[in-house]
């Protein structure tokens, strides 16, 4: 079928392949759509175009028109409009498509251009790939293999520039490796709004540096490391730890706030080495906060709970489940759920509360939003609690009602799913008065006071989903096995539900989702397996009236979520 021409689409020809792209697309992006690689360094889709690396040189031609009559000039041999090829190459990043534009990327001229640019870039670049952290994910390395000439004609001495400069607490700079693409400078200025980087001594000795006395220490500084096409900027945390090609990549979600930045967790043999952002143009573009990258350290942090305990002594899971059911069976039970739990866990928490005929409360965690990717709501999944029906209203900062019920004796036992009751405002006396059953990853006042403790998993050790501030349900996967002794949250919750008289709903995400989609109308059509990598927008309109804590941030305006969902539907 012939598609009607869309007014916003422009037809261009890349290496002879015809493609219609939206107005304003540049040649690199247009070529990407027909799987033609235009090598580049300085161009980044989320930053302004400067065109200073010259690597994306291509040959460009425009359809020929008669200068006098403006009539198309036809080529009698082919019957098509002639193409006027420009005698000199042009950069792809700064060339926006125009109707009938022709691009060639495979000609001798383009090949010579790339070889020439590569040769200049490599003149002062140290040949220290064997000790360079970027090796394996280095654009310079890849493109010198792909487009370089293969040997060096340079016999002079290379420039000497500062090495091992600490730009900030998390970013190390090796100026000799820098190819002056200025991505980091533009990122700091345009995205992080912290304009501290610049080139000084411009010329043969151009040097990337921070303004003397200032530091690159904003909470987004590590994105400069991600976008650095070479090994000039490296992370002080990841530096010299592991070769990237040994690492397994697992898609995950940043749990530090309700922004829900998409991430990749890099691990090897059960050890996580780093967390980097994953592109999601509707959520976090290609960025994430530095604070979210260190969360993996919780996996092996001191105080990690690694054994099921009953009355303080190690116990088997079966016995502990029995003990917990006995405590809860006496009546007067309450459930404290968490905005940090996954959607599946929240659903099971709700089921547990229903089985116990108890009220579930949540604890809010509100900080200051930075307007970018750390939002005011530091619980990653408050909206999940709303969607699954665990909570009908937003959580409060303290457990006031629960405290009153404990004082009055109405509540005698509490199941806490990962929430520290002491931090949520219960006094020591109140906690001593009740029997606590605690599911959590790390030791705290609640785990110490608890009669039954189930050690559970961190976000890196389990599968699950989270609903971010846009009501976008996003999936994360297990990157590493859980620490020895820990039990999957779903296993504990499911078995606790059945031990307390509810139906057993399974202990893996797939099975739990069967029940979840059957019971929660908002999730009816969804299965864990069919959630796309970029998430799925849910209809948030039933909760539009709630006073959510978040202010405007990247790709989010307060109150805009329902409209977005409506537009999608």
């Amino acid at each position, binding site marked *: 079928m012939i598609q009607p021409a869309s007014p916003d689409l422009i037809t261009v020809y890349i290496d002879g392949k015809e493609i219609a792209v939206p107005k304003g697309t540049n040649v690199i992006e247009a070529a990407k759509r027909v799987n033609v690689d235009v090598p580049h360094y300085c161009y980044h889709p989320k930053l302004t175009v400067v065109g200073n690396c010259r690597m994306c040189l291509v040959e460009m031609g425009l359809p020929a028109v008669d200068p006098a009559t403006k009539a198309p000039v036809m080529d009698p041999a082919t019957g098509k409009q002639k193409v006027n090829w420009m005698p000199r190459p042009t950069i792809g990043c700064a060339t926006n498509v125009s109707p009938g534009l022709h691009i060639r990327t495979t000609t001798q001229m383009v090949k010579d251009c790339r070889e020439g640019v590569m040769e200049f870039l490599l003149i002062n670049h140290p040949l220290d790939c064997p000790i360079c952290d970027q090796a394996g994910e280095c654009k310079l390395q890849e493109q010198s293999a792909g487009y370089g000439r293969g040997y060096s004609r340079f016999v002079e001495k290379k420039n000497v520039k500062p090495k091992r400069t600490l730009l900030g607490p998390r970013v190390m700079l090796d100026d000799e490796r820098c190819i002056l693409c200025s991505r980091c400078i533009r990122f700091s200025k345009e995205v992080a709004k912290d*304009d*501290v*980087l*610049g*080139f*000084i*001594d*411009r*010329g043969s000795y151009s040097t990337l540096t*921070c*303004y*003397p*006395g*200032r530091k690159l220490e904003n909470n987004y500084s590590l994105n400069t490391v991600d976008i650095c096409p070479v090994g000039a900027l490296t992370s002080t945390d990841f530096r010299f730890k592991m070769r990237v090609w040994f690492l397994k990549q697992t898609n995950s979600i940043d749990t530090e706030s309700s922004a829900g930045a998409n991430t990749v967790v890099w691990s090897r043999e059960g050890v996580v080495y780093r967390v980097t952002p994953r592109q999601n143009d509707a959520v976090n573009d290609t960025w994430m906060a530095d604070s979210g990258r260190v969360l993996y350290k919780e996996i092996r942090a001191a105080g990690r709970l690694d054994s099921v305990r009953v009355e303080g002594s190690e116990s088997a899971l079966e016995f502990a489940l029995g003990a917990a059911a006995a405590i809860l069976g006496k009546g007067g039970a309450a459930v404290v759920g968490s905005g940090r739990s996954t959607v599946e866990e929240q659903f099971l928490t709700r089921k547990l509360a229903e089985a116990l005929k108890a009220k579930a409360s949540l604890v809010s965690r509100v900080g200051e939003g930075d307007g970018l990717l750390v939002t005011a709501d530091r619980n990653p999944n408050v909206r999940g609690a709303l969607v699954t029906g665990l909570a009908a209203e937003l959580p409060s900062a303290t457990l006031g009602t629960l405290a009153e019920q404990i004082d009055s004796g109405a509540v005698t036992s509490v199941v806490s799913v990962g929430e520290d009751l002491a931090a949520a405002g219960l006094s020591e006396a109140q906690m001593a008065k009740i029997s606590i059953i605690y599911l959590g990853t790390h030791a705290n006042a609640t785990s110490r006071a608890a009669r039954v403790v189930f050690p559970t998993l961190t976000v890196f050790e389990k599968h699950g989903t989270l609903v971010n501030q846009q009501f976008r349900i996003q999936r994360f996967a297990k990157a590493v096995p859980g620490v020895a002794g820990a039990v999957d949250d779903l296993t504990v919750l499911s078995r606790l539900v059945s031990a307390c008289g509810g139906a057993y709903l399974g202990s893996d995400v797939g099975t739990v989702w069967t029940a979840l989609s059957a019971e929660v109308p908002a999730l009816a059509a969804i299965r864990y397996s069919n959630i796309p990598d970029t998430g799925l927008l849910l209809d948030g309109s039933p909760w539009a009236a709630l006073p959510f804590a978040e202010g405007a941030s990247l790709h989010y305006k307060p109150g805009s979520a329902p409209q977005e969902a409506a537009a999608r539907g």
Partner: protein
Amino acid sequence: MNLKAETLSRIDEVIPHYPVKRSAALPLLHLVQEDQGYVSSEAIEWIAEKLGLQPINVYELVTFYPMFRQKPIGRRHIKVCRTLSCAIMGGYRTCAEFQKQFETRLGDVSPGGDVTVEFVECLASCGTAPVVMIDDELHERVDAARARELSDKIKAGAPTDTGRR
């Protein structure tokens, strides 16, 4: 920043000459250097503040142009040409003589703070090489003997002006 009132008024006068404030960075740097003898980091920050920029943006400019100084210089600034004609006609000997006279090295402030001696590129008076500029005065055919003469005058605090600019 302790700028003279006249410098301040010239700064305020020059900024609106440009369509965007940022463009006034270079003239401001010149004015501040004229006033203070060099561009201190305090001055860089002051200019950035004045033009709504970040200090790094001004710092990039200062490091690009060799004629912006980031350190104080002596009371008189001796600039010896080293481009071809002057180099052939003995500019290097002239420069060495100045350095010997003031017991200083290239680019340093001489002990006592009298002068700073520096090489510069062509001063556009090749016919009368070797040429030297002392502050804004042009001195032609400065061989070693003439360099000694000029040095004595500077040391004595006597005027060296030739009337040439």
